[in-house]
């Protein structure tokens, strides 16, 4: 897309960029695999992920540390290190972007997709004033002149609710609190009016009160700009009220994906259930015994054959250890996908009574 055209699109950043009539999903990810060659062997960080995201919608991606959430988002954005190998296709607005060159991706960044990182303490350049970090992409992508870019930056700082933007625009990152910095990061990400925002654990490093403010802010900006968002987190609570759909990842795969309400009310995949049960909740009385999941996530270099959750799954059967369950759509609810041979709920075969998982044994990773 030429700079001229892009600029047109952006001039009114808060107008919805409605897709052309009949256009497909904004993002279409199909069979994406990403692996890293390391000294120990090949790490299969993302192992066959498929999903679609419509314009203006929010997809929550939930999973424990190492489940491949960040690698997946970086794969889609083309931000992988050179040690990575990738397969599969990614379509953005119908265009295959999986084999774009570095320049090709650069044209997408900022105006089509952008990213908010986890740690606001490290994601801003410590030696540049925050104003400069915002105006930089405005000037580069939208060809704004200095004055115009400055005014837009002020408006953005105001939009992300930074008090006294005119003063703050000249601050360095270290002069701001964590919450304020994350607002700046969001302003940077929103600057050129992207259609898709990746928020990779945007609040993990922040306090609850600030977390709530930042999530409110993201939701508000998303509504105003009709922007789609992929909200990555390890905290089911963060996405529960804020995502349209949730995908649960385990060992590099999506193991369950459903509209948010359905995922919580009709959980089918044992890992999702286990995750929900393991979280302490304020709604429970104190000293409620938690249902911990025994063991720990698999080694991604030598993942277990079959279902990756089978060593920890209370319902595992012979078949689970032999072949991997495919991600298939529920017969009960359209749009509800899960990867399990013996899903929870009443269509579970009668003979699948729970077995106790192996106890945690000590020993090396």
């Amino acid at each position, binding site marked *: 897309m030429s700079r001229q055209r892009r600029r047109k699109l952006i001039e009114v950043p808060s107008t919805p960029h409605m897709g052309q009539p009949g256009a497909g999903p904004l993002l279409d990810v199909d069979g994406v695999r990403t692996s890293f060659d390391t000294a120990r062997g090949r790490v299969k960080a993302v192992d066959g992920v498929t999903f679609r995201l419509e314009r203006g919608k929010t997809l929550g991606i939930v999973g424990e540390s190492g489940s491949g959430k960040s690698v997946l988002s970086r794969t889609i954005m083309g931000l992988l290190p050179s040690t990575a190998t990738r397969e599969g296709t990614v379509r953005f607005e119908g265009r295959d972007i999986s084999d774009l060159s570095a320049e090709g991706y650069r044209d997408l960044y900022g105006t089509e997709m952008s990213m908010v990182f986890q740690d606001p303490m490290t994601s801003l350049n410590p030696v540049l004033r925050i104003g400069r970090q915002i105006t930089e992409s405005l000037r580069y992508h939208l060809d704004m002149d200095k004055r115009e870019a400055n005014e837009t930056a002020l408006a953005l700082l105001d939009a992300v609710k930074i008090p006294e933007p005119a003063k703050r625009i000249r601050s360095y990152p270290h002069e701001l609190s*964590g919450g304020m910095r994350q607002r700046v990061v969001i302003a940077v990400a929103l600057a050129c009016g992207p259609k898709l925002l990746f928020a990779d654990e945007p609040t993990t490093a922040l306090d609850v009160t600030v977390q709530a403010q930042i999530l*409110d802010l993201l939701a508000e900006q998303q509504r105003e700009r009709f922007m789609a968002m992929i909200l990555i987190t390890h905290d089911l609570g963060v996405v529960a*009220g804020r995502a349209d759909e949730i995908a649960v990842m385990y060992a590099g795969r999506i193991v369950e994906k459903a509209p948010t309400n359905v995922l*919580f009310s009709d959980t089918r995949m044992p890992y999702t259930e286990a995750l929900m049960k393991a979280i302490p*909740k304020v709604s429970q009385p*104190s*000293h409620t015994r938690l249902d911990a999941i025994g063991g720990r996530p698999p080694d991604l270099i030598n993942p277990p054959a079959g279902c990756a959750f089978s060593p920890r799954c209370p319902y595992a059967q012979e078949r689970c250890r032999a072949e991997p369950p495919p991600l298939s759509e529920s017969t009960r609810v359209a749009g509800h996908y899960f990867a399990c041979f013996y899903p929870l709920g009443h269509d579970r075969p009668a003979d699948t009574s729970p077995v106790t998982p192996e*106890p945690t044994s*000590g020993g*090396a990773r």
Partner: protein
Amino acid sequence: MAGSGTAHLRPAGSALLRVEGLVVEFSAARRRTVHAVSNISFDILEGETLGLVGESGCGKSTTGKAVIQVPRPTAGSVSLDGVELTSLRGSRLRQIRPQLQMIFQDPISSLNPRRKVADIVAEPLRIWRTADADQEAAKVEEVLVAVGVDPDAARDRRPHEFSGGQCQRISIARAVITDPRLIICDEPVSALDVSVQAQILNLLQDMKTRYGLTLVFIAHDLAVVKNVSDRVAVMYLGKICEVGPPDTLFAEPAHPYTEALISAIPHPDPTVPIDSGIRLTGELPSPLDPPSGCRFRTRCPRAQARCSTEEPTARGVGDDHFVACHFPLLEPEE
């Protein structure tokens, strides 16, 4: 408490640990002072778990460290079983150290990477040579089994060969090996994944039952604190705002800050509507120059003139429920 006061303390002599008027200050550049902890009081009964919650920088870790006297507090009294720790010096203090243990947030870096697990776990015993080699080996084996680590597989390995959860188990083993009276857990599960977090929380509960431990449990995750605590103290900018049993405190917070904290908790349940009504605004003030009167007043929706001149002190608002606020959400008792 965001004021001072001691109304929430139990009768003298009944508590295992009693902290009164604790002040910890650090000196900063240009002869300024960081008021990290300013005149707080709390106590813990034998076998009780006290949860300390509050936002980053409110002084939780500083409080925990002041209890074990590293560094020694600027002012105030810390007494363990009637022994005043702040006046102990040298070997008298070292003698009491095995009774106070600490578990830290980062499980991997809090263990010496060059030493073997067996040595790490046995170390607190060796300081006082309370056991001979056989007794020591037996004790190491016992605690490792108790925390769910296979002693034969683990003994001769080093911390980096273990996952975060396993390292936290080893830290717990090290902490309980001296049969301590009190363990200070500073965010012990914050760096762990949910599935492992639940294992460690359950383990702490089991260890408490097994060894009769008394815990100070520091965390910023309110749900975790509610789950493990018998009593919760909410801190804000070096002060205690509210103290009470977790179920009461979460159901009926009396302090405006507690209310704001609770309303910010994300619920893993889409049917719970997001409560964006009570959002704290403004920035956390600097501990270099805390607000006068009630320290929460710059962000408090209920603040009035009195709050800037007079510091609120602890008052009872219910059964074992205390708040330091001039205009609390619950009617104070007389």
